């Protein structure tokens, strides 16, 4: 029992990331009809916004500490970040420590901007082109973004630690009545899940309760009619794209303490997120979210030793296997409508 709960918990953080990326993919696909292969790159850019913020906050200068001397009796030079010198060691130190959450605030406008530029500059011209062209051009864009990141940040993963308050693990099992040490769970993963839940809830509420959201949902259901109503969907679509980019971006920011950012993480997540979208049902937002968590958890179960000893290698292929089975038996996915993109 405790093992099962542990696997579910382990699946949550990956599942959250899948759900957030798949949500954006589905929004873009559902409203704009565009298959965006560069969506994983947005997740990656988000992660590197976190890296950049961490570096910016870490800028420091040397100063002489009057109270201390080194072992030769000379005044000791200590490094001090600008942030600490501006806000004092208490507040400044906390800001530096909390660089990942700070990066979320920075990432939202940055990602919105990236999304707007991408949509206006490129995607817009591909609304009417075949899906194959959309895939190809966004695939090209993904390569470019990935290589740019590699150029500026290098090929090696970069560590971005969580705030020290959330470092380490805690005994989750004790909280729900298990023996001590039965379920040890890292704090940050729980934070990530809570964060994902808030973002997902926010996006759904936004779509549900705002006029903008209503138009978007109507557009997803029947694009042409909404166009005929004389509503300027173009502008809303741009906003929509920005929103999807921002969701992917902050998902990337918050994921950095779990996975040190590297330049190919976008592609890795993209392929899996597409699988998620297909399993959930192309064009279905609840489907994307449900499938994201489902597959994340399934993946973590498949990597249990008990399972692997019966079905060797299952952890490597489980997601693809599920996708293949779903596509063959229920092409519309778990919650999708029939006929979407079936030509």
């Amino acid at each position, binding site marked *: 029992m405790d093992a099962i709960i542990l696997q579910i918990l382990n699946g949550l953080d990956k599942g959250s990331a899948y759900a957030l990326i798949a949500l954006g993919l589905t929004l873009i696909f559902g409203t704009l009809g565009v*298959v965006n292969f560069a969506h994983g790159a947005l997740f990656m850019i988000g992660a590197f916004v976190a890296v950049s913020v961490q570096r910016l906050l870490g800028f420091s200068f040397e100063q002489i500490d009057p109270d201390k001397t080194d072992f030769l009796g000379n005044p000791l030079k200590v490094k001090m970040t600008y942030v600490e010198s501006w806000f004092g060691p208490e507040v400044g130190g906390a800001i530096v420590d909390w660089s990942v959450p700070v990066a979320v605030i920075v990432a939202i406008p940055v990602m919105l901007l990236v999304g707007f530029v991408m949509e206006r500059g*490129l995607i817009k*011209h591909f609304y009417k082109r075949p*899906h*194959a*062209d959309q*895939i*190809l*051009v966004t*695939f*090209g*864009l*993904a*390569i*470019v973004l*990935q*290589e*740019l990141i*590699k*150029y500026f940040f290098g090929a090696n993963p970069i560590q971005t630690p969580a705030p020290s308050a959330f470092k380490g693990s805690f005994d989750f099992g004790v909280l729900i009545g298990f023996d001590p040490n039965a379920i040890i769970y890292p704090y940050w993963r729980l934070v990530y899940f809570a964060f994902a839940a808030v973002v997902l809830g926010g996006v759904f509420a936004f779509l549900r309760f705002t006029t903008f959201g209503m138009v978007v949902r109507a557009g997803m259901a029947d694009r042409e009619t909404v166009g005929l109503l004389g509503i300027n969907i173009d502008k809303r679509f741009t906003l929509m794209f920005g929103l999807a980019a921002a969701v992917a971006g902050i998902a990337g920011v918050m994921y950095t303490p779990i996975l040190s950012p590297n330049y190919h993480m976008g*592609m890795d997540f993209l*392929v899996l997120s*597409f*699988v998620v979208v*297909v399993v959930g049902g*192309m064009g279905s937002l609840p489907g994307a979210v449900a499938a994201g968590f489902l597959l994340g958890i399934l993946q973590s179960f498949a990597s249990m030793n008990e399972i692997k000893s019966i079905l*060797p*290698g299952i952890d*490597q*292929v489980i997601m*693809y*296997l599920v*996708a*293949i089975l779903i*596509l*063959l038996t229920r*092409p519309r996915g778990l919650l999708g409508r029939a006929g979407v*993109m*079936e*030509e």
Partner: protein
Amino acid sequence: MKFLGLSKKDTTFLLIVITLTLLTPIILQPFPENSTLAQFNAGYPDLMQRFAIFGIFAIGFNILFGLTGYLSFGHAAFLGVGSYSVVWMYKLLGFNVLPGLLLAIVVSALFALFIGFISLRRSGIYFSILTLAFAQMSYNLAYSVLTPLTNGETGLQVYGNDPQVLMGENAPDSPHFFGLVMNESARLDLGGWQFTFNNGYYFTAIIAIIVFYVSLRIFRSPFGLMLRAIKTNQTRLNYTGLNSRPYTLAAFVISGMYAGLAGGLMAAMDPLAGAERMQWTASGEVVLMVILGGAGTLMGPILGAGFIKYFENIFSKINDQVLQGWFGFLPDGIENFLIGVSHFFVGKSWHLTLGLLFMLVVIFLPGGLVEGGQRIAKALRKKRSGDDDDGTEAQPSAAE
């Protein structure tokens, strides 16, 4: 003059391709060895082999994607299967490449039949994702549970204690074709020029010519016509009494066999096989080659493969020294600026150039290099014939 069932125009076309292929070691070596431009030479055995091998891969992919429009993101799986087959034959039988290549074609055909049979039940992006899923599964399995077959991360290679039962006493200790050793070359020094005629290149080049001829025949055949019809209107095809599924499956299997052959030839040139050949980036690369050259055209895939492999080689070689050599005559400020900008695109950043190029082609030149060439030729013709009206020009219906 008619030849092997080809029209006059196609015969000329084939003969040109044959001539160019056979003369490649000379054509790609236009600059003397010690000139500053020698870095643009491409007549090295290793690079020329890659031209031919990726040419085969792309020609095969074009039969599926170019003709039917089904975009597979999983063809690298067949590439990998081909390589493993060849290395296994080395291990079991000996270094003659023939059994391995035959096995590579058979195994990849069976594999493609299986994957195609399932994936082709869906079309459009679903098909792409199914093929991608299969290829990623193969890749992941090759790294993990299939290690006994693939030797995992190390990659499959020949060891001293392998059986190699058909290995004769004096047989060469590296891949060969009935004694023709792949990595041996004849060199010709002519003035400042040095030409390398490599056995491996000629072996792959002759195979490439044969498979190019096969693709030419397919393009001109009723089968090819049906495949093009599938791309333009599958509904009409079905309501014309034709079953599109076996046609697409046949195209899928043929292109899978081409990919398997290409993978096999990789191992025939260099007796190694690794799982990274199955990664989806490798599938992406062949898509790129075909698009860049011109999907659905005969020459496109070859041009695309050659273009990408050539510039990959050249661009990766350009470093600061080379750049300084180019921009050295400029004032320092401008020189540094230009070198800085160039950094984005050369050396290790070659993939960035590739990605940009890819976007530009999809945006501005969906027909690829072939279409670009046609546009230029058309513009030139128009210029020459003055204000001759262009209404007389026949529409090129099939791929030229």
